């Protein structure tokens, strides 16, 4: 089901929205469950994909990052070198982690925390359940490596958490380096 899904199925034009930055309170707010058939949520799904597309290096964007405290995010890790299993571009509503194992530590960044990166331990084998926008049947996604990490990062956003809440040590937050 997810393999045949495309943002085109939403049948609405996505708008590019502003990405909010910490310490904006919406990023610390638990997102509300969404109705995946609600036209405003279908529009939000298209907006998330459109905003993700225009943001360089962005592999995922959660609703709180565009100012909406809702359980929805877009994801596309297709072009990332650390990706193994890949489900292409998709949007997921009301996603929950069903199973997680094989933790590994890696450094993460976030468009909403542009000045820092941090070391975070996350599962590299992951099963997630959620609903595609415009559909009603829950689907299960099993993945690994970078897609697993990205999914956990976005699900955290939907629950009002940032990678800063999960860093692996007192010195595991780093100022982001920009070379001159």
């Amino acid at each position, binding site marked *: 089901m997810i393999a045949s899904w495309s943002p085109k199925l939403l049948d609405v034009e996505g708008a590019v929205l502003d990405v909010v*930055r*910490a*310490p904006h309170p919406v990023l*610390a707010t638990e997102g509300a469950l969404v109705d995946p058939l609600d036209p405003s949520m279908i529009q939000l799904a298209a907006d998330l994909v459109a905003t993700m597309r225009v943001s360089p290096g962005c592999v995922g964007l959660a609703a709180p990052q565009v100012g909406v405290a809702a359980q929805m995010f877009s994801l596309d890790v297709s072009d990332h070198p650390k990706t193994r299993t890949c489900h292409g571009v998709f949007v997921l509503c009301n996603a929950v982690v069903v199973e997680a194992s094989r*933790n590994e530590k890696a450094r993460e960044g976030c468009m909403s*925390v542009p*000045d*820092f990166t941090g070391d975070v*331990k996350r599962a590299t084998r992951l099963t997630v359940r959620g609903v595609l926008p415009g559909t009603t049947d829950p689907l299960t996604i099993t993945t690994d490596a970078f897609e697993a990490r990205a999914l956990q990062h976005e699900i955290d956003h939907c629950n*009002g*958490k*940032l990678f*800063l*809440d*999960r*860093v*692996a*040590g*007192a*010195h*595991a*937050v780093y*100022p982001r380096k920009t070379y001159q």
Partner: protein
Amino acid sequence: MSQLAVTVIGPDRPGIIADVTGALVGTGVNLEDTTMTLLRGHFAMMIVCAGPIDEVESALEPLQGELVITVRTMGPEHEHAPIGAPYMLSVHGADRPGIVAAVTRMIAAAGGTITDLATRLSGGLYVLTAEVELPASADLEMLDRALEITAEELGVGVTLRPAESDDL
């Protein structure tokens, strides 16, 4: 031979650590624990070492001026036995005075001790990360609640979770 605390602070440039430790080599000093970081672009280093204070002071004298260097004699080494299980504390939110004081007060009130801490400010975002040990007698639920109330008053988010360590 006494244990010395050497602090070095100043504008950052390549080669400070090489210069400072190079000067110390000739004094026969033995470097023990060292930490160094950049604090808002300032070079900041602390060294605990064992050696003769007079020789260490004169060896570092040529670097004074560009850098602010202090050398002090320390009391006997104070071994800190772990008081309990390790936890990671994360705090982030809009910058304002009093965040560190209020949050660390709650940890102290629960009998906890902080073993490592860093704070960073960038733009309006303030981030505190700390490693904490809590005694077995600490009421975790009460501490969580106290931290939650403190965080709410400060308008920040606080997370306290067990620090994982994988023994191999």
